[in-house]
C-alpha cells in the first residue's frame, strides 16, 4: 500500500538545491522586463505623465500609460481577482494601483526609469478607514448566502440563563509568498503563451480568453514551481492581463516580477473583520442561541465577502442560529482569499466567545464544546459526510496534557512567568471540484501522471504519484508526474484544500481504468504489476494511457462536509516582558483519510505556525489619512521567525470519508491555521486574566501595572 506511506517530497531535492526553476528564473530570449509605477494616493484622477527623464535611462523601450495597452475594463469573470482593470482609464480607486508600465531590456533599467517617471495625480477625497465605516456595511449576493437563520435567536436568548455578547476583530493580513507573483507573457501567432506563478492555470486561461476575445485553445498557460501562493495566486490579477497586453503591444515577450512592495496591493490580502457575537446558554452549558454578524473591509474595485459567520452555521448543535456577513466598500486594494478564508477569521470570534462562556459557566472549555457537539448540520439539517471531532478533542487534550490546566486565571509558573493554556475548535467547509487526469504506462514500466493541477508546496507532486502507484501496484520510484499546464487534462485550482480529494480521485479513477485495460488486454483479472510489460509486448504496444474524470455527485450534496480540528496552546507571559510567547501547540484534525502522513503533517504544522502569525504578529495597519497600508515589506510587516515557533505537534483522527471523495480524503491544506488565533487568545486569558478580543494580541493589551 503506497497510500498512507510517509513518502518524502518528490520535489524536495530540486527545491533545497536551488535547481527548481521559478518564473523569474526562466531564460526567455528577447524578453523585456516590466515594472509598474503605482499610485501613491487612494483616490484621484491622473492628470499627466511626464516621461522625459525616464526615457533617458539606457535600455528603456516603452512606457505605457492609461488607455495605451489596448485593453478595456472592467473584466467580469469568475477567475479574475478583481473586475476593475487598472491602466484602462485615468481613475484612481486605491493606493498601489498601477498607473504606468515601464518596459526595458533589463530589470535594473526598468526600475530606474519607473523611479524617474513623473505621474501627476489630482487627488480626490477617499474613504479608507474600516473601523470608522461599519455603518456603511451592505449585504451582497455571493457564492454562499450572506445571511442565514434557523429558529429564533430572540426565543433562544429568552430561554438562556447566561448570555455573552462581545465584539472581536481580526487584522488586515497579506499572503507575502516568498516568491512574489511573476509572469512571462508572449503574444504569438494571435494567441497567448503564458508562464505565470499561479495556483490555477485553467482559471488564467479562461480569464485571458475572455479578456482578449480568444478561443481557449489559443491560450496556453503554464505554472512550474510556485514559491507559495496561499490564495494570492488563486485568481487572475491585473498584472497578468497587462503583461499579455504589453507583449502584444511591443511584439516581444514581457516578464513582470512584482517587487515586494507591490505584493501588498496587487493581488489581494485578507481583509480586516469585525465580528459581533451573542451566545445564549443554560447553566449546564447547552447553547440556546448563536448570533454571529461579521463585517469585512472590501474595495470599490470589486466585491469580496469574507464569510466570517460561515463556521457558526454548522459548528455547534443549537436550535437558534442567525448569521450575517456584510462588506464595507472602501478605497483600498481588492481583498481576496487567504489561507484560511472565511472560517480563518470567523472562528476567532466564535471560539473566543465560547471560551468566555466556559469561563462564565465555570466549565471546562473542552467539556462545553462536547456538550454542544453537532451530530448533524444545525442549519441545513443534513448529516455530516464524516466527522471525528470528538476523537480530536480527546486525542488532542491527551497529547497536550489539558488535564493539568488550572481553570483559575493567572496561575504562576517558575520565575514569575505566567503560564496559560487555551484551546479552540477548528472548522473549515470542504470545497470540491471536478478534475481529470491521465495515467500512462510505458512498456518499461515507467508511469506518468498528467493533470493541470499545481504544486504550490502542499505535496501534490508526491501525493498524486502515490495514488497512481497504489492503484497500479507499482513502486513510487516508477511514477512521474507532470503538472501546471493547460495542455494537460483539466483540473481546478490548487486552493480550498481541495486538490488531493478532487484531483487525487481523478488520478485514482484513471489508474484503475488503466489497470482494467491491462487486464482486458491480458484476458485475465488479477494481473500482477510484473506482468504489465509482457502484456504490452504481446499486443505490440509501447504504452497504454487512460484518462479519469471525477466530479462531486448530486447524491453527495445530501451531506454537510467540513474539516475539523481541536487546537491546544500553551503561552508564557513574563512580568517584565509581557509579550506573550507560545511555548507549545498541539493540533488534532479530522480531515478524512490521510494519503501521506508526512506531507499532511507538514501542511498542518505549517498552518498552525501561520496561525501563530495571525494570533501574535500579522497586522497590516492601514493609514486612514493616506489611505494606504503602512508596511510594504518584511521589515515592517512581521511574520513569525523560527524563534517564535515552539514545539508544534499534529495528530490525525483515523478516518475514511466515504462521501467526500472515492479515496476517502476530505481536505487538509488550510484547517491547520484555523482555531490557533482563538486558542492563543484563550491561553493568554488563562495566563493573565486579561480577555483580548482583537488579533493580533499586542503587548499593550497586557500592560496593566
Amino acid at each position, binding site marked *: 500500500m503506497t497510500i498512507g506511506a510517509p513518502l518524502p517530497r518528490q520535489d524536495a531535492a530540486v527545491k533545497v538545491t536551488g535547481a527548481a526553476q521559478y518564473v523569474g528564473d526562466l531564460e526567455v530570449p528577447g524578453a523585456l522586463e516590466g515594472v509598474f509605477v503605482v499610485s*501613491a494616493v487612494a483616490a484621484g484622477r491622473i492628470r499627466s505623465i511626464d516621461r522625459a527623464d525616464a526615457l533617458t535611462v539606457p535600455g528603456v523601450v516603452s512606457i505605457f500609460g492609461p488607455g495605451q495597452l489596448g485593453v478595456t475594463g472592467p473584466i467580469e469573470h469568475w477567475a479574475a481577482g478583481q473586475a476593475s482593470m487598472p491602466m484602462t482609464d485615468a481613475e484612481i480607486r486605491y493606493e498601489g494601483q498601477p498607473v504606468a508600465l515601464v518596459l526595458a531590456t533589463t530589470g*535594473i533599467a526598468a*526600475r*530606474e526609469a519607473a*523611479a524617474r517617471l513623473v505621474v501627476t495625480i489630482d487627488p480626490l477625497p477617499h474613504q479608507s478607514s474600516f473601523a470608522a465605516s461599519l455603518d456603511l456595511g451592505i449585504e451582497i449576493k455571493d457564492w454562499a448566502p450572506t445571511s442565514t437563520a434557523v429558529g429564533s435567536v430572540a426565543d433562544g436568548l429568552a430561554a438562556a440563563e447566561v448570555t455573552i455578547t462581545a465584539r472581536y476583530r481580526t487584522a488586515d493580513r497579506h499572503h507575502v509568498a516568498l516568491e512574489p507573483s511573476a509572469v512571462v507573457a508572449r503574444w504569438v501567432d494571435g494567441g497567448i503563451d503564458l508562464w505565470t506563478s499561479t495556483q490555477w492555470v485553467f482559471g488564467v486561461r479562461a480569464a485571458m480568453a475572455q479578456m482578449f476575445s480568444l478561443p481557449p485553445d489559443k491560450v496556453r498557460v503554464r505554472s512550474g514551481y510556485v514559491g507559495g501562493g496561499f490564495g494570492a495566486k488563486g485568481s487572475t490579477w491585473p498584472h497578468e492581463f497587462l503583461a499579455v497586453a504589453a507583449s502584444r503591444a511591443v511584439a516581444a515577450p514581457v516578464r513582470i516580477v512584482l517587487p515586494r*512592495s507591490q505584493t501588498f496591493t496587487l493581488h489581494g490580502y485578507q481583509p480586516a473583520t469585525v465580528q459581533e457575537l451573542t451566545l445564549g446558554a443554560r447553566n449546564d452549558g447547552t447553547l440556546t442561541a448563536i448570533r454571529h454578524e461579521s463585517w469585512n473591509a472590501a474595495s470599490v474595485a470589486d466585491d469580496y465577502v469574507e464569510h466570517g459567520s460561515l463556521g457558526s452555521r454548522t459548528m455547534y448543535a443549537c436550535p437558534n442560529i442567525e448569521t450575517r456577513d456584510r462588506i464595507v466598500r472602501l478605497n483600498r486594494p481588492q481583498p481576496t482569499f487567504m489561507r484560511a478564508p472565511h472560517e480563518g477569521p470567523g472562528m476567532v470570534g466564535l471560539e473566543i466567545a465560547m471560551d468566555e462562556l466556559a469561563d462564565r459557566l465555570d466549565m471546562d472549555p473542552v467539556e462545553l464544546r462536547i456538550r454542544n457537539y453537532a451530530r448533524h448540520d444545525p442549519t441545513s439539517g443534513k448529516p455530516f459526510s464524516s466527522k471525528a471531532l470528538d476523537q480530536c478533542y480527546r486525542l488532542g487534550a491527551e497529547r497536550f496534557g489539558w488535564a493539568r490546566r488550572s481553570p483559575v486565571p493567572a496561575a504562576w509558573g517558575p520565575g514569575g512567568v505566567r503560564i496559560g493554556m487555551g484551546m479552540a475548535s477548528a472548522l473549515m467547509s470542504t470545497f470540491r471540484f471536478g478534475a481529470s487526469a491521465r495515467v500512462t504506462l510505458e512498456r518499461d514500466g515507467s508511469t506518468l501522471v498528467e493533470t493541470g493541477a499545481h504544486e504550490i508546496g502542499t505535496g501534490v507532486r508526491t501525493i498524486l504519484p502515490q495514488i497512481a502507484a497504489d492503484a497500479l501496484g507499482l513502486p513510487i520510484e516508477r511514477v512521474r508526474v507532470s503538472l501546471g499546464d493547460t495542455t494537460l487534462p483539466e483540473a481546478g485550482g490548487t486552493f480550498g484544500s481541495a486538490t488531493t480529494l478532487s484531483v487525487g480521485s481523478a488520478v485514482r479513477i484513471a489508474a484503475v481504468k488503466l489497470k482494467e485495460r491491462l487486464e482486458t488486454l491480458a484476458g485475465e483479472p488479477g494481473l500482477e504489476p510484473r506482468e504489465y510489460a509482457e502484456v504490452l509486448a504481446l499486443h505490440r504496444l509501447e504504452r497504454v494511457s487512460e484518462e479519469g474524470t471525477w466530479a462531486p455527485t448530486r447524491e453527495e450534496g445530501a451531506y454537510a462536509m467540513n474539516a475539523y480540528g481541536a487546537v491546544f496552546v500553551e503561552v508564557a507571559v513574563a*512580568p*517584565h*516582558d*509581557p*509579550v506573550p*510567547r507560545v511555548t507549545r501547540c498541539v493540533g488534532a484534525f479530522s480531515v478524512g483519510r490521510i494519503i501521506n502522513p508526512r506531507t499532511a503533517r507538514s501542511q498542518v504544522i505549517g498552518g498552525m505556525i501561520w496561525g501563530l502569525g495571525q494570533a*501574535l*504578529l500579522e497586522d497590516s*495597519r492601514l*493609514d486612514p*489619512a*493616506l489611505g*494606504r497600508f*503602512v*508596511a*510594504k*515589506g518584511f*521589515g*515592517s510587516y*512581521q511574520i*513569525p*521567525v*523560527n*524563534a*517564535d515557533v515552539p514545539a508544534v505537534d499534529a495528530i490525525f483522527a483515523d478516518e475514511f470519508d466515504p462521501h467526500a471523495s472515492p479515496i476517502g480524503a476530505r481536505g487538509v491544506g488550510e484547517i491547520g491555521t484555523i482555531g490557533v488565533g482563538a486558542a492563543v487568545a484563550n491561553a493568554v486569558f488563562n495566563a493573565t486574566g486579561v480577555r483580548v478580543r482583537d488579533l493580533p494580541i*499586542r*503587548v*499593550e493589551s497586557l*500592560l496593566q*501595572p
Partner: protein
Amino acid sequence: MKIFDYRAANSVAEAIAAAGPGSAFLAAGTEVVPALRDGLLHPDRLIDLLPLGLDGIERRDDGLRLGGLARLSDIASHPEVLASAPALASAIEQSGTAAIRSMGTLAGNLLQQVRCPYYRGAAPCNRRAPGSGCSVARGDQRHAALMPLSFHCAAVHPSDPAVALASLDATIVVEGRAGRRTLSLDQLYPAAGAVLGVPSVLESGDLIIALDLPAGRLPGRYAKIRDRSSFDFALVSAAGGLRLEGGVVVEAALALGGIAWKPWRCRRAEAMLVGRPWSADLVRQAVAAELSGATPLEGTRFKVELAIRAAATVLDPGGPS
C-alpha cells in the same frame, strides 16, 4: 538603482579625500545595499572601507578600544567585552540576525537610518523628502518615538548596541578633514529640535575609526522588548546596571532605546536612584520621572510602562548579572 562608481579605499586619508558630494561610505553593506535597492540612497560614488581594517579590539590602560569596522559578532564574543561590558555583548546578541551580526560593523550600526515604515515605504516623510511632512503625526504611531526629535520626525533610532554604549559612557573617535576629534554618543546624534532627520551629525569625509569604552564602568545588562522573538527592532529596550552598598544605590547607569531618535541616557533617573535604598518602586519612580517630560503621541503612550519594565529588568540587583 542608478549607476555609480565604486572605489576601494586603501588608507583612512584616501577614504576621506575620496569623499564628497554624492559619495557614500560602504562597509559591510548590510545597511547601504538595502538602502540602494529601496531607493533610499542615490550615491554617485561608493567608497569601500573594508580594506582599511580598523576592526581590532584592544585593551588599553584606560579601557577598551573597539575598531569602527569591528564586526558586531566579533565584539559580542570577545572575552574582554564579555568581562567588562556584558551589556554591549548582550545588546549585540539581541540585534538583527546571526548573518547580519557576522557582517555588520559597529560604526555602520550606529549610523544606520531609521526603520520607520513611512520612511521605508515611500510615504510622505521629511527624512526621505524634506518638506513632504511627517506621516506619523496623523498615522500609525506604534513604532514612533516617545520623545521625538522634533515636529519634523518622530522616528526612533533602531540600534541596540548604541543603547548599551550610551550606558557605558562610550566615546567615538572620528577622523575627518579637520583631523581627529572625539564625540560622546550623545554628540553623535542631532540635538533635539533639529529640522533634518539625519542619522548623525557627521559630515562628508567624517569616518568613525574607533569607539572607546572607559574602564571602571558598571558592566550592566541589556533588556529588549520586541513583538517578535528574534530579528526585530526594540519596542523599548534598556541598558545599564546598579551598584549597592548595604542596600543603598551608590552607582547607577541607565539608557533607554526605542523611545527617541538617539539612545536615551537617563541622567535624571540615575540621580534619583543614587543615595537611596533600592526598591522596585524607587526604580519605577525614577524611570517615570525621567520620562515625565515626554508628551507622547497617543499611539506611543504604552511605551512609558514598557520602558519602566525594561529598566526594572536591568536595575534589579537580584537579577542575573
